[in-house]
């Protein structure tokens, strides 16, 4: 199994740094130590799975699972703010009306020209 040592270049949290240690109250120190113990427990679980010789599959990362779930189910997470409403209208509503206007006027102009006989068919396009 891989050796568990502290990462040599990592900084310690302020409460466990010996230079700051005596500036802090005992409650803060105890809280920080218990958090560090939890982190160490998680790291041990991860390392157990990482170095398990019989492991064949990916290690499950709950943060990744939550992220993938959030990306796959955006609707419950949607909140109608000014920015999202503006984006929705800009990309979902305005283009439809704008394109309707563009296509309708273009086609109506073409229809008038066809009826008046002035349409120039400069490309010989089969349709």
């Amino acid at each position, binding site marked *: 199994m891989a050796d568990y040592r502290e990462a040599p270049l990592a900084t310690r949290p302020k409460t466990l740094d010996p230079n700051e240690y005596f500036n802090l109250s005992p409650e803060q120190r105890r809280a920080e130590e218990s958090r560090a113990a939890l982190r160490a427990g998680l790291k041990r679980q991860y390392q157990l799975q990482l170095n398990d010789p019989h*492991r*064949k*599959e*990916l*290690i499950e990362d709950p943060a*990744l699972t939550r*992220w*993938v779930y959030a*990306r*796959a*189910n955006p609707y419950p997470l949607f909140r109608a703010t000014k920015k999202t409403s503006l984006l929705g209208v800009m*990309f*979902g509503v305005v*283009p*439809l009306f704008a*394109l*309707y206007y*563009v*296509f*309708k006027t*273009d*086609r109506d102009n*073409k229809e008038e020209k066809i009826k008046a006989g002035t349409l120039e068919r400069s490309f010989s*396009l*089969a*349709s």
Partner: protein
Amino acid sequence: MLKILIPSMFMLLTTWTSPFKQLWSTILMYSFLVATLSLTWLAMPTDTGWFYINNYMAYDPLSSPLLVLTCWLLPLMIIASQNHLAVEPENRQRTYISLLISLQIFLILAFSATEMIMFYVMFEATLIPTLIIITRWGNQMERLNAGTYFLFYTLAGSLPLLVALLIYHSSMGSLSYLSLTSLPLTCSNLYANKLWWMACLLAFLVKMPLYGVHLWLPKAHVEAPIAGSMVLAAVLLKLGGYGMMRIMIILDPLTKELSYPFIILALWGVIMTGSICLRQTDLKSLIAYSSVSHMGLVAAGILIQTPWGFTGALILMIAHGLTSSALFCLANTNYERTHSRTIILARGLQMVLPLMATWWFLASLANLALPPLPNLMGEIMIITSLFNWSFYTLILTGLGTLITASYSLYMFLLTQRGPIPHHLILLEPSHTREHLLLALHLLPLLLLIAKPELVWGWTA
């Protein structure tokens, strides 16, 4: 024709009476035999007209490519499902195969229907095996939600179609395809006639899917098992396109005015869903949105009702069916190894599985419509006929082509190139079965370069 339909029906019997050790090989060989026989449908001695088998079933140059695609897909689905079903008990494996075979039977009957009501009944009937496959054999909890969306979107779209068909039948007396061309409903500009027009098309637009009503598709494709995804992408979407092509005949002259919103939705959907593809983290979801994008082009091509539009739509439907199904099979090879669909978890696969990288490359090139593949031919014909319809569509379709190319390349580069992540410690080498599956998908696509007359329908 009956030499293909009756064997398909009896394949159901074979599924339940074969000895279990030989089940998959028997069904595979049987379905390959049926698929080979179905190629006779492509031999059209005359260029126009219907080939009638009996009073109720016929095929013509529009439906024969779709029929051949349906029959070709069954052996491919069997090959693809073999691995993930190996752990199931015997009866469940037989049930799964029976569902796939019954889906094929309904699809054959739908594409060869000569009357709109029979087409409608078969159109609805295909929903049931697909729903069972998605909700029972999907892999995640979301499959129930996916099945609900799939069923209710399609049903809500197609109940108005039933009403519209019955109205037409009661006033015109017949819904046979032969008489549809000569009996258009006199469509004045009454509001009721506009509603009838809308009711006729809504079912097919939901099925295609059109951009505004496409929500069921990413859910259904992602949650379905591989055979479900293959048949959904390859054939069931094309049912919508085929139905639209058939029903356009009776919808004149209202279509000239009323089709604008749907053409606009389709074209805008090409761009929007293409952009969504660039932001996807789930591989199957990316392929599903790319299906919506291609089908948007098909919908626009059909709605403008020109000969090239129809031809391009049909070619793109066939080419997209093969390409999309191939991409889902490739995504499934990733899924079977890592049991995750997240793209970033399985990168740099070219170093590990180089032969599979070849198939990824070909399928991605087909998806981005590389010449001389039929994907490009279909897209070019649709884009040209849209340009003739109105010059300004070129902005949308050109941008859409650009975005299609970029997300196809993005998918290829993200899955194949780059450094291999450190957490992947076991990737099985590619099975021969997987190579066979992809070869059988891409070989017809490459062969269609040489003879596109087979799939370009009856208008070109």
